[in-house]
């Protein structure tokens, strides 16, 4: 079953299909759910979308999402402004926050990925270098994912920051908490073994 794209329902389905993780079937389901939903509920959703686009922008310092000039982490003087955690995307900031981390962030908005055509100039890398050059930063923690592309980005940043004498560290790789050794895949176990620490 398909709907003509100029039809209002068809238009909605087309728009929904562009969202990440939404296939044609899910798009239809959501569209018909909204069609049946009470007017205020559908409008609340539409407003939330408009609002987020109008009010949310990127922090001028760390490029995390914010409503003001600067994000709340960059403005918070009780946080350690000399400790910068570099992440791939804003969602990762929320993950690191859950650990009780008290430094600040830098969001790259992606990782180096030649296959997808993402090079250094597509990332917020020049801005990171500029931040470090201005001084006041002691340590940069590379918290990109432990994927090939995340590693590539971490190594690239380390090289970029070499001239400034700042300490660049990398998240450890190893066993997930609560894991059962017998059920772990070999790659994870091998890395944990390589990265073992003195007790």
């Amino acid at each position: 079953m398909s709907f003509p794209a100029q039809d209002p329902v068809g238009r909605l389905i087309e728009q929904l299909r562009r969202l990440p993780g939404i296939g044609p079937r899910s798009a239809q389901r959501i569209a018909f759910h909204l069609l049946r939903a009470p007017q205020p509920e559908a409008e609340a959703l539409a407003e939330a979308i408009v609002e987020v686009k109008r009010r949310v922008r990127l922090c001028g310092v760390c490029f995390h999402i914010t409503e003001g000039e600067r994000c709340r982490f960059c403005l918070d003087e009780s946080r350690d402004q000399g400790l910068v955690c570099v992440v791939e995307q804003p969602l990762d900031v929320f993950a690191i926050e859950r650990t009780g981390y008290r430094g600040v962030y830098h969001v790259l908005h992606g990782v180096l990925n030649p296959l997808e055509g993402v090079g250094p100039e597509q990332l917020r890398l020049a801005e990171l270098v500029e931040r470090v050059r201005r001084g006041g930063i002691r340590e940069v923690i590379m918290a990109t994912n432990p994927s090939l592309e995340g590693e590539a980005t971490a190594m690239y940043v380390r090289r970029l920051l070499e001239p400034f004498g700042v300490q660049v560290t990398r998240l450890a790789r190893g066993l997930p908490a609560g894991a059962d050794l017998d059920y772990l895949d070999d790659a994870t176990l091998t890395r944990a073994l390589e990265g073992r620490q003195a007790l």
Partner: protein
Amino acid sequence: MYIYRLSLRNFRNYASVDLELDRGLSLFVGENAQGKSNLLEAIYLLSTLRSSRAASDADLVRRDVLESPFPVARLECEVERSAGNLRLEVAIVGRTVDPSHRAGKRVRVNGIPRKASDAVGQLAAVLFTTLDIGIVAGAPLLRRRYLDMMISQVDRGYLRAMQRYARVLQQRNSLLKRIQGGQASATELNFWDQELAHSGGIIMFGRAQALAQIIPHAKLHMERLSDDQERLDLTYRPALGGLEDVDCPLDEPEWIARLLRALQRVRQREIQQGTTVVGPHRDDFAVEIDGMPADAFGSRAQQRSAALSLRIAEAMYLRQALGDDPVVLLDDVLSELDARRRRGVLEILDTFQQTIVTTADPDRVRDVLTRASGRFVVIAGTISRFEGE
């Protein structure tokens, strides 16, 4: 090691098969296209988690169920090993019906779900086929695959390096194309060079070592199997852009360093061509019979003996590396040998715990029939035992 139980469900042309197998030689007799090769393919798949001939997983699922709500093939075997007994289960989902499921393979080792790559080599096997002549006379790809399938059964680090290498190579090639087109700068290559050299060096070291180990076995069996005690020589030809002629690296770090230097040497050429020109994806090994290249100068019989010697050497290599016998699979290869060579092969294979042989022509291999501890007949996807003649 040996397989004592094997079950197939909806695999290729088998709807349902349950077999009990013994040590020694099991013979499967059947006309062409009845399912003999499919049986050996199933066992080899349990060993390598890769089909020896299918292009996609969907090809492995029996046609009648491919369009059903459960388009799944199941393979299961129980194996007695010196390293402890093994129950291996592989489910192959040929097609996704429900979008929440993925097509692909699910693997359990002794009941525990595993990544397919972690289950490779749990069951060790060597497969002889009539296409093996390609290792001697065919494209370099076939020789690389021969080494890769053999080494990855016993070396986890090698298998991981191969997987990582494939991804790094893809990324690096597209970066080279971007640099060629002026969309990226050559300094971005540094990380990818390091990574490529690292996993590539591990692969090259593994291949050099494995070849050194199989050479004496291959030479010995070539002498025994050929008519005039012909000499077989195998020489590794790593793709190092000219640096391979320098003395051979000895350990893994040296191979990695050598490949990194090769990458730096050919950088301009790689940028011009927009592709990686050195590294194990371009490797080869030379096969020579009595000092002449086997592909151009070897007779068909010589090439066949050389291919057979390489497979026997593979079985010996696995035995040495594992401290246990691999299961030996012969897909219709005995009927193309004369009685003397066949006896030679069988004498070697008698030293292995289990050999599984298929033939379309039992009258040509009566000597095999009399040696067999288990005899089966394969007709249209069903297998039954038979006794006597």
